[in-house]
């Protein structure tokens, strides 16, 4: 799923044992994007089925990933571990080596339990306002990501409305919009920060601009489709009321586009978190998950890097869950779309 892939780089993060509950809110076999499906009456006797269909597949994959992870830790950490054991001068066997690869201070690949312990210590050992607490950093990143997302929604919807209403904009604007997304964000992020810094804008705003730059694209694409989703009959109806352009936009095109907007939002919010983290890297920021990643890599604190990565992925999951919740509340009652609605 996108959150995992975006937030945690090449190595997929398995849900840590105690944090697992949060992640499994997002079931992998997700059918359809638009409509919510609050099917009543799926309770009790169905619980076994839910366990079988939803929990079991996730659990199996989790166990496989964990096993591969521990094996990888042994493989990647053993040269250093062997060196350390030899330096200690005591005789050691294979079991000693394996035990050592799981408990090193600066392993090449930390084990999931090390990451969970580090994450747990950070979250519970300090006040949420302390820079040693990852919640503090997640908050800083989330602030930038959400500000950027909001800006991206405004820009994306405005562009989509322009494209839908002004035919020529579709041909003149769309190539530039697509081209903008072919530039690697890592290349353009420092430029944005330097340019905005030059005109006196630092801190949250440059990061939010980077997020917006990434976010607006899925919103534009989704909303162009969404704003055109209004049925011709619905438009005719507005005409018989001699409704103005604004009324048609607000009372017909926007509500008809909401399912598309939410689909785009879920993609955008995950990208936005990535954007905020990327934005924190070149700025030498003191706070934020990006800053945390950077300082971890300065000092070779691999465990710290990994727990920041897990935190970033948890942040994305939470934000997506929030959007999903809003979607269910807003679009949920309209599940008759298409079939019964007409």
């Amino acid at each position, binding site marked *: 799923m996108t959150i995992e892939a975006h937030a945690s780089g090449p190595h997929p993060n398995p849900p840590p044992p105690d944090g697992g509950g949060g992640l499994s809110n997002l079931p992998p076999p997700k059918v359809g994007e638009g409509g919510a499906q609050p099917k009543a009456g799926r309770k009790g006797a169905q619980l076994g089925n839910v366990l079988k269909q939803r929990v079991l597949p996730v659990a199996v994959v989790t166990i496989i990933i964990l096993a591969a992870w521990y094996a990888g830790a042994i493989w990647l950490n053993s040269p250093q571990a062997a060196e350390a054991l030899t330096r200690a001068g005591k005789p050691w066997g294979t079991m000693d080596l394996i035990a050592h690869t799981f408990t090193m201070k600066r392993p090449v690949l930390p084990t999931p339990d090390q990451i969970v312990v580090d994450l747990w210590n950070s979250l519970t050992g300090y006040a949420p306002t302390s820079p040693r607490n990852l919640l503090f950093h997640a908050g800083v990143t989330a602030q930038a990501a959400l500000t950027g997302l909001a800006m991206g929604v405004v820009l994306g919807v405005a562009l989509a409305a322009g494209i839908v209403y002004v035919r020529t904009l579709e041909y003149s604007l769309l190539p530039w919009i697509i081209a903008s997304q072919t530039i690697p964000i890592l290349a353009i992020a420092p430029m944005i920060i330097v340019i905005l810094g030059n005109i006196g804008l630092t801190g949250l705003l440059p990061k939010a601009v980077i997020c917006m730059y990434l976010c607006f694209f899925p919103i534009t694409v989704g909303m162009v489709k969404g704003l055109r989703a209004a*049925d011709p009959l619905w438009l005719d*109806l507005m005409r*018989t*009321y001699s*409704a103005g352009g604004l009324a048609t936009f607000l009372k017909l095109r926007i509500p008809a586009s909401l399912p598309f907007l939410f689909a785009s939002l879920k993609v955008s919010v995950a990208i936005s978190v990535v954007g905020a983290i990327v934005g924190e890297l070149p700025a030498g920021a003191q706070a934020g998950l990006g800053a945390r990643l950077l300082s971890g890599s300065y000092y070779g604190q691999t465990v710290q890097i990994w727990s920041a990565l897990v935190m970033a992925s948890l942040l994305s999951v939470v934000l997506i869950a929030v959007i999903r919740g809003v979607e269910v509340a807003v679009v949920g009652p309209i599940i*008759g779309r298409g079939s*019964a*609605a*007409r």
Partner: protein
Amino acid sequence: MPGDAGPPIVEARGLSLVYQAADKPVFALSEVDLAIHKGDFISLIGPSGCGKTTLLRVIADLERPTSGAITVEGMTPEQARLKRLYGYVFQAPALYPWRTVERNVMLPLEIMGVPKAERQARAADQLANVGLTGFEKKFPWQLSGGMQQRVSIARALALQPDLLLMDEPFGALDEITRDHLNLQLTQLWRRTGKTCVFVTHSIAEAVFLSTRIVVMSPRPGRILDIIDCDALPRERTLDIRESPEFAAIAHRVREGLKEGHSYDD
């Protein structure tokens, strides 16, 4: 009242509408002359492609004629549309799925800028009119097809138009529901005294509802016959369908359709 004195509500003279298709022009309407008077219930009947829906859409200013003249309440269709003088019921209910039944009926009133309290009162009135009191807070998908179409009629009535334009509103419904809604519609029409223009391809429906039946024929879309239904009482019950007068009118409609080669191939 049909053929009453006084200016007609809708008057068309030499009305034509030609689509420029890729290979040849398509005559959707050709030289149509028609006068609809206050309190009339006019049915437009004919096979597919005879221009009955097009004629209704021209009256509603959803299409522009290529030539000829048409007035709606003495003005151009566009002026009549801008003044919101008619209510239009489409073939499909065309309810907005994100709005409850009540808010669907209030939609035209919101656009007109009617204050909220009055909107609610008028929506309640019209829902009572179509027998849907108690369904205000339901969403369209929670209603049957017939109920949805009744909501769309209530929505058209909410504008309080004198002229009601209906494009095969019951075409997609089963016969039992259709009979029921026809009865409700004819009672509504008698009670409110509105002028109705009703597109259908059901002969029985046309005879049952109408004061006059306009028989149309395709290629080019034109009027073949206009049949008065004065032989039938204005108050219609389902029983009149068994009467000889009903059969006679239905026969004449069928003859008219035959003349227009509606039953060919």
